[in-house]
């Protein structure tokens, strides 16, 4: 591969060098970059996905549209952007539980969940959840009954998945906002269940 530019340089210097060179070529604008990073640090996160789930729980028409075309349905609520182009929503139900992974890297539906947590990128999760999902989920605190079938969805550069969890019992009469507060990031990846009302 020739001379290694990384040799002896910290990651911070490597990024700075690259960013400078790209800026000089007009390929990166520092202000645009700052804005973009701030958006992912502050605005784009699992709350978007929670709103989607809460809407699906309260509006059967929306639920149907969400399951038919995830990308279009989340765009209805104003959520779109990179890594969300082909969003497929998989619905948990009695006897079936879905869990999402990206075995090769870290593909994840950014517009609805933000950036992935570190365990999602971890080699152990990526390798093991496919081979022994029940064990991995139990280790993460989710005990599923033997009768529940587990289906693992491997994300790719083409398709991202979002789990539509089951609505928790005891929530009839809850507003969309109250419901959204029960929906965690982990429940939308399928490694946890949504919260239950206090």
């Amino acid at each position: 591969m020739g001379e290694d530019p990384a040799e002896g340089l910290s990651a911070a210097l490597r990024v700075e060098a690259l960013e400078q060179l790209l800026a000089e070529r007009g390929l990166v604008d520092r202000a645009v970059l700052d804005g973009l990073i701030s958006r992912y640090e502050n605005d784009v996160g699992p709350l978007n996905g929670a709103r989607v789930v809460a809407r699906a729980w309260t509006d059967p028409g929306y639920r149907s549209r969400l399951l038919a075309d995830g990308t279009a349905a989340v765009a209805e609520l104003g959520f779109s952007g990179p890594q969300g182009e082909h969003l497929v929503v998989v619905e948990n139900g009695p006897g079936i539980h879905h869990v999402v992974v990206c075995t090769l890297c870290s593909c994840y539906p950014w517009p609805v969940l933000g950036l992935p947590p570190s365990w999602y990128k971890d080699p152990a999760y990526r390798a093991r959840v496919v081979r022994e999902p029940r064990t991995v989920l139990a280790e993460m605190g989710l005990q599923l009954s033997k009768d529940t079938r587990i289906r693992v969805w491997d994300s790719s550069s083409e398709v991202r998945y979002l789990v539509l969890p089951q609505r928790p019992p005891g929530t009839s009469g809850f507003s969309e906002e109250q419901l959204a507060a029960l929906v965690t990031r982990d429940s939308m990846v399928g490694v946890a269940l949504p919260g239950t009302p206090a």
Partner: protein
Amino acid sequence: MTPLDVEGAAAPPRRNGELVFAEPWESRAFGVVLTLCETGALRWADFRGELVARIEAVEQSGEPFRYYRCWLDALERITVAHNIVARTELAERGRMLAARVPGHDHP
């Protein structure tokens, strides 16, 4: 290294208790990829291919796995492979930045 201010106004943003980026350079490397993809200078699928290859190489080598290291390696490799920057100028610029007078090393 100053301990992170977890509670106060300077607290870094967290998602379900986890930092989105552990260090500032990670966010810059992330942002550079997104920007290049948005402007069409890079295709996401090409970057992802390189990222997958780096992750696989690190996993097989038994080196400690650090996700954004793989990301940065992939970013350097793909920008060099697509002739967006040259490997030698990356190294030169990096060395130049490293040689700055302390205290003047912030953009």
